[in-house]
């Protein structure tokens, strides 16, 4: 049960978002500019950073949503979902670019705390071709997910485990982005389950 009374049937951050529309607006604006284009890092790469940090913070809802959105940006195949799972487990062993690996290393340091990022970490990213903008954005995406993850877990929101729910969220988000959406609208994967339970 959530720590405060949140609207029923809305998973993860959606409950607090609907509870507090005045904070939701800047939160959505922030995630929109951070994770959607136009940027030299692709939306899939940005979602991977968000997913990795959320996984390091052990936030089920955020890592599942953003992992699914990343996979959908890559095409949405089982192999894409498998790649995202591997990135969470051990990104160094995945076929992602050396630049992305260096940026994920920075993101992992930010997750532990800002002061963990060293000049050497930044130098390694630069050697693989990362720009100042890309390093800046990596730090801010990682920092922002240290906020989103704490928001979602700090209120003990409902975080279902059914992968179908996250597949639906990933499809929606990869197509629609984050701004101007109706987060009150029930997810089909959840409504379908509830119908079955009631019957």
């Amino acid at each position, binding site marked *: 049960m959530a*720590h*405060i*009374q949140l609207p029923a049937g809305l998973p993860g951050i959606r409950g*607090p978002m609907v*509870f*507090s529309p*005045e*904070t939701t*607006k*800047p*939160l959505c*604006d*922030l995630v929109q*500019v*951070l994770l959607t284009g136009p940027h030299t890092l692709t939306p899939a790469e940005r979602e991977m950073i968000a997913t990795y940090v959320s996984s390091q*913070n*052990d*936030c089920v809802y955020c890592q599942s949503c953003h992992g699914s959105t990343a996979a959908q940006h890559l095409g949405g195949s089982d192999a894409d979902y498998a790649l995202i799972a591997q990135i969470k487990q051990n990104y160094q062993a995945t076929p992602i670019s050396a630049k992305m690996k260096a940026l994920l290393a*920075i993101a992992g*340091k*930010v997750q532990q*705390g*800002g*002061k963990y*990022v060293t*000049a050497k970490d*930044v130098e390694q990213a630069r050697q693989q071709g990362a720009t*100042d*903008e890309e*390093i*800046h*954005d990596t*730090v*801010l995406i*990682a*920092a*922002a997910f*240290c*906020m*989103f*993850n*704490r*928001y*979602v*877990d*700090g*209120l*003990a929101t409902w975080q279902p485990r059914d992968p179908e729910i996250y597949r639906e969220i990933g499809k929606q988000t990869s197509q629609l982005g984050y701004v101007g959406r109706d987060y009150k609208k029930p997810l089909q994967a959840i409504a379908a389950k509830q119908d079955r339970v009631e019957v």
Partner: protein
Amino acid sequence: MAHIRLPEGIPGILGPMAFSPETAKPLNALAEVLLRGPNTLTPADREMIATYVSSQNDCYFCQHAHGAVAAYRLGGNEKLVNEVKLNFESAEISDKLKALLAIAGKVQKGGKQVTAEDVSRARQHGASDKEIHDTVLIAAAFCMYNRYVDGLSTWAPDDPGLYRENGKRLAVEGYVHSTDRLLANVQK
């Protein structure tokens, strides 16, 4: 030296904000609504939550910037702000604020650290769902701002007078207006 090339001579978060105006906008809008929007928690209470979390994250710039706003709001009571950072349980603040600071301290360590008992304590001292929500989100947001400031290794001045002046400016003008004005001057 900062990890990326930031405009020179601008302290703390203002450097990355000048570097990236498109992200500065929602970051300032969030601080504005969280710390200054209509709320049953006073701006001073909310700035103390921000200051305490920034202090737990060891972020020099943020704890001094927001500590100065809190002190200004409290009529210049820097002593109280320092006591809150060092040991809020023995500071002269309300039981409700102590319970909310305890929740904020848990959020700083990680969202899952917040327990039903922590929330129940806050509720026993009269905290509403909105106040608990806002405390969690302020604490979470400062886990972001602190990491942004330190993760880029920004410059933090150590002159208390500068933070005092900045605290007054932020309290009077707010996060959106004062930052817009400051950054407009930087870019010129």
